C-alpha cells in the first residue's frame, strides 16, 4: 500500500503546487488579497505531501519491498540500513524526488522568512517557486515515477551500485542539490521582482542571503564529491573535469558571479540587468546539471533517443522556464536603466572584472563539456576533451581573477583610484612575494613556472583579505557579519590557490609490482608491502593488504588498502588507504594479483591535498556567516513601503 500512498501524495503535491503557482502569480497581478492568502497554506500542504511521498519510498527501501521497481533496481536485502535509506537518491527517479523535497523545504523557509516582505512580493516569489515545483513534479509523475510496481516482484534487489556505498557519497547529493535548489530561490526573487516591476536595491537585499546560502551548500557539495572521487574511485586525483563534475561546477561559477554582482546591485543600484540575467543563468545551469547528470545525456546524446519522452519533456521544461524568464526580462528591460556612474578604480569595476572572468571560465567549461556531445550529434567524429584543454583555459581566467581580487578588495565604492591604496598594495604584494618565495624555495626545492606565481597569488589573497577587518578592529569599529563572511570566504580562496599550486606542482605517484616483504621508495617515504589477507564485510568479501610506511627509518603508518568484491553485482571496488603526514596525503591503492606472488600497488603522495577540501569548507562557512548578517534580518517592511521605482502592482 505504501507505494500507492506515496504516489497519491505526489499527485496531491502536484495539485497543490499548481494552486501555489496560480494564486501566487495571479493574486498579486489582479490585486486579490484573498487569493494571496491561499498561497502559504498551499506551500505547507505541498511540503507535507512531498515529505509523505519521500517517507513512503524510504519505508519501501527499509522494508525491502522489491515489488517496487525502483527499490528492486537500487537496493538489496543484504544492504546495510544506512545505505538502504540513501539508496533513495541512488538513481534518476529518486534523485528527482529528493530535488522536489529540497525545493519544498526551501519554499517553506522562504515562506517563513518572507514574513517581513510585502505580502504581494512574497506571494509572487512563492508563486514562481510553485511553477518550478509543478514542473518537476509533473516530470517525475509522467516520466520517472519512483513508485512503479513490478509484477511479479523480484525475490531480491539488484543492489545499490557499490561505488555509491560510501558515507561521503551518501550525503553528497543532498548537499549538492540543496545548493542547486537554492538558486531556484534567487531565480524566483528575480522573476518576482520583474513581475512586480520593482527593480530597485531592496530586491537585491532580499535575495542576497538566500543566494549566498545556496552558494555555500553548492560549495560544500562539490567539495564532498571531489573528496569522494579522491579516495573511493582509487584514481587518486581530486578533480577530473568529468562531465558530471563540470555540470555542478558551472552553476557554481555563475553563482559566484551572482553573489558578487548582487553586492553591487544592492549597494549601488548598478548592474541590475546583469544580476537578473545571472540569477536566471545560475538556476538554468542548476536544472541542466540535475537533468543531464541523472538522465545520462551527458554520457551520450543517444540516451535521449533511448527515452524520448524524458528528453522532450526536459527540453520543453527548460525552454518554458528560461524562455519565460527571459521574456519577462525583455519586457522589463526599460526599467533597468541606472543613472549612477563609477570610476575605473572603484570597487564596481573590480567586481565587473570578477564577473566577466567568472563567466568566461564558465563558458570555457561549458564549451569543453558540450563539445563531445555536439561533435557526436553532428557526426563530426567522436572526440573527448580532457584536462589538457580545461587546465590552461581555466587558468587563463583564474590567474587574472585572483590577482585582481587582491587589488580590488581595497577599492572604495564609486570613487577610487589605484593611487589611494598604492601603499597597501605594495606592502601586501612584497610580503606575499617573500612568503611565497620562502615556501617554494625553502620547503620545496623544485617546481615549475607556475609554482611561484600560484603561491604568490594565494598568499597575496590571504594577506589582502585580512587588511580591512584588521584596520577596522584597530580603529575599534565593529566588523559586520557580511564583511567577516567575505573575509573568511576570500581567505578560503587563498588557501585553495596555495593548496592547488602545491598539489599540482609536487605530486608524486607511481605504480609498482611488489612481492610480500618487498619495498619501494617514493619521495622521502619508504613503503614495505607486508602481503595480503582475506577480508569479509556485510555484503562483500575481498582481500586487504598491509603496507608499512616509514620515513628515514621512523615508522609513519600502516596502510590497509582493500580490494572488495560486492556479492550482488559482482563488482570490484578499490578501497584506498590514506594517511596524512606533515601535510602530505599518502595514498595507497591495491591493484591486482600479478602472479608469482606479486601484487600491483599504486602509491601517490599529494602534499596539501586535504587543504583543497578544507579551503572549500572555509569558503562555505564564509558564505554562511555572510548570509546570517543582521541587516538582512531586520524588518524592511517600513522601507519597502516607501515608494521606490515601483511601477504599480497592476502589472
Amino acid at each position, binding site marked *: 500500500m505504501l507505494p500507492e500512498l506515496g504516489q497519491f501524495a505526489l499527485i496531491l503535491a502536484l495539485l497543490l503546487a499548481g494552486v501555489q503557482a496560480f494564486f501566487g502569480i495571479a493574486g498579486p497581478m489582479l490585486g486579490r488579497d484573498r487569493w494571496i492568502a491561499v498561497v502559504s497554506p498551499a506551500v505547507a500542504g505541498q511540503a507535507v505531501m512531498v515529505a509523505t511521498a519521500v517517507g513512503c519510498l524510504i519505508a519501501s527501501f527499509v522494508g525491502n519491498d522489491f515489488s517496487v521497481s525502483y527499490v528492486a533496481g537500487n537496493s538489496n536485502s543484504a544492504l546495510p540500513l544506512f545505505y538502504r535509506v540513501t539508496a533513495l537518491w541512488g538513481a534518476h527517479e529518486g534523485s528527482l524526488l529528493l530535488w522536489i523535497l529540497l525545493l519544498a523545504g526551501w519554499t517553506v523557509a522562504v515562506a517563513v522568512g518572507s514574513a517581513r516582505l510585502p505580502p504581494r512580493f512574497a506571494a509572487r516569489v512563492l508563486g514562481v517557486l510553485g511553477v518550478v515545483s509543478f514542473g518537476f513534479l509533473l516530470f517525475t509523475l509522467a516520466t520517472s515515477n519512483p513508485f512503479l510496481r513490478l509484477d511479479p516482484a523480484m525475490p531480491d534487489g539488484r543492489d545499490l551500485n557499490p561505488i555509491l556505498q560510501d558515507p561521503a557519497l551518501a550525503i553528497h547529493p543532498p548537499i549538492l542539490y540543496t545548493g542547486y535548489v537554492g538558486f531556484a530561490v534567487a531565480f524566483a526573487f528575480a522573476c518576482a521582482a520583474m513581475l512586480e516591476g520593482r527593480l530597485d536595491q531592496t530586491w537585491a537585499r532580499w535575495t542576497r542571503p538566500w543566494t549566498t546560502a545556496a552558494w555555500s551548500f553548492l560549495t560544500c557539495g562539490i567539495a564532498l564529491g571531489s573528496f569522494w572521487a579522491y579516495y573511493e574511485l582509487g584514481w587518486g586525483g581530486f578533480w577530473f573535469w568529468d562531465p558530471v563534475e563540470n555540470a555542478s561546477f558551472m552553476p557554481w561559477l555563475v553563482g559566484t558571479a551572482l553573489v558578487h554582482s548582487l553586492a553591487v546591485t544592492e549597494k549601488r543600484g548598478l548592474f541590475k540587468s546583469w544580476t537578473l540575467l545571472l540569477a536566471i543563468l545560475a538556476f538554468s545551469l542548476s536544472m541542466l546539471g540535475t537533468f543531464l547528470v541523472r538522465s545520462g545525456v551527458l554520457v551520450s546524446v543517444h540516451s535521449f533517443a533511448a527515452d524520448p519522452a524524458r528528453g522532450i519533456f526536459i527540453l520543453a521544461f527548460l525552454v518554458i522556464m528560461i524562455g519565460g524568464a527571459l521574456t519577462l526580462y525583455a519586457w522589463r528591460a526599460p526599467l533597468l536603466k541606472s543613472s549612477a556612474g563609477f570610476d575605473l578604480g572603484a570597487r564596481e569595476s573590480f567586481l565587473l572584472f570578477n564577473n566577466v572572468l567568472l563567466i568566461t571560465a564558465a563558458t570555457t567549461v561549458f564549451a*569543453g563539456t558540450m563539445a563531445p556531445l555536439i561533435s557526436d550529434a553532428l557526426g563530426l567524429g567522436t572526440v573527448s576533451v580532457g584536462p589538457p584543454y580545461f587546465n*590552461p583555459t581555466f587558468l587563463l581566467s583564474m590567474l587574472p581573477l585572483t590577482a585582481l581580487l587582491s587589488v580590488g578588495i581595497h577599492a572604495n565604492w564609486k570613487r577610487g583610484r589605484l593611487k589611494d591604496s598604492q601603499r597597501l598594495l605594495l606592502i601586501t604584494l612584497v610580503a606575499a612575494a617573500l612568503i611565497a618565495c620562502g615556501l617554494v624555495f625553502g620547503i620545496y626545492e623544485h617546481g615549475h613556472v607556475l609554482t611561484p606565481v600560484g603561491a604568490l597569488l594565494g598568499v597575496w589573497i590571504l594577506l589582502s583579505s585580512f587588511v580591512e577587518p584588521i584596520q577596522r578592529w584597530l580603529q575599534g569599529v565593529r566588523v559586520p557579519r557580511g564583511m567577516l563572511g567575505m573575509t573568511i570566504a576570500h581567505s578560503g580562496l587563498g588557501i585553495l590557490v596555495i593548496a592547488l599550486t602545491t598539489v599540482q606542482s609536487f605530486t608524486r605517484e607511481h605504480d609498482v609490482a611488489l612481492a610480500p616483504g618487498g619495498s619501494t621508495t617514493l619521495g622521502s617515504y619508504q613503503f614495505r608491502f607486508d602481503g595480503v589477507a582475506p577480508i569479509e564485510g556485510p555484503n562483500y568479501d575481498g582481500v586487504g593488504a598491509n603496507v608499512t610506511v616509514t620515513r628515514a627509518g621512523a615508522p609513519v603508518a600502516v596502510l590497509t588498502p582493500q580490494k572488495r568484491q560486492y556479492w550482488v553485482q559482482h563488482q570490484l571496488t578499490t578501497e584506498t588507504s590514506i594517511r596524512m603526514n606533515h601535510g602530505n596525503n599518502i595514498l595507497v591503492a591495491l*591493484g*591486482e594479483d600479478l602472479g608469482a606472488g606479486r601484487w600491483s600497488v599504486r602509491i601517490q603522495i599529494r602534499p596539501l591535498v586535504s587543504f583543497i577540501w578544507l579551503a572549500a569548507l572555509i569558503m562555505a562557512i564564509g558564505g554562511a556567516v555572510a548570509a546570517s548578517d543582521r541587516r538582512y534580518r531586520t524588518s524592511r517592511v517600513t522601507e519597502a513601503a516607501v515608494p521606490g521605482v515601483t511601477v504599480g502592482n497592476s502589472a
Partner: protein
Amino acid sequence: MTPRQRRLGLVVGIIVGVSIAGGLALSAFRKHVTFFFDPSQVASGQAPVGESFRLGGMVANGTVQRAPGSLEVRFTVTDFAHDVPVSYTGVLPDLFREGAGVVAQGHLRSDGTFVADEVLAKHDEKYMPPAVAKSLKRRHGEARSDPGS
C-alpha cells in the same frame, strides 16, 4: 575623459579581453581535443601513428596476458571486425575484464601495437563507453540503441 568615454573604454577593454581569451581557448581546443578511433578505423589507417588518441572496443576474450609478477599487461581490443594489440604498464581499473568495454588512451607504435598510458573502464559495469557502444553497433548493424545495456 567624460564618464561616457570612460565607460566606452571599459566596454572595449572587456571585449578585447574576452576575445583574446576566446581565441586562446579555441586554439587550446584544437590542440587538446583527443580523437577516438575503433579498431577498424585503426586497421584502415585513419589513426595517426605516434600521436595520442583514444582507442575503444571490447577486451577480446582470452587475450589478457602478463608475464608473472610483471606490471606490464597485454591484451587485444576488438570491435569484432578488427583487432588491435595493446600494451599497458600500471594498475588496471576495477572494471577492466575480458569481454567488457574499454577505452585506452595512448599512441600507436609503428609495429601496430597501441601503447596505452591510461586505461579507462569507468563508473559501473552496466556502463559501456558510448563511443564503444556506437562503434560496436555500427559494426554489427544492430537496430537497438541502448547504451545502458
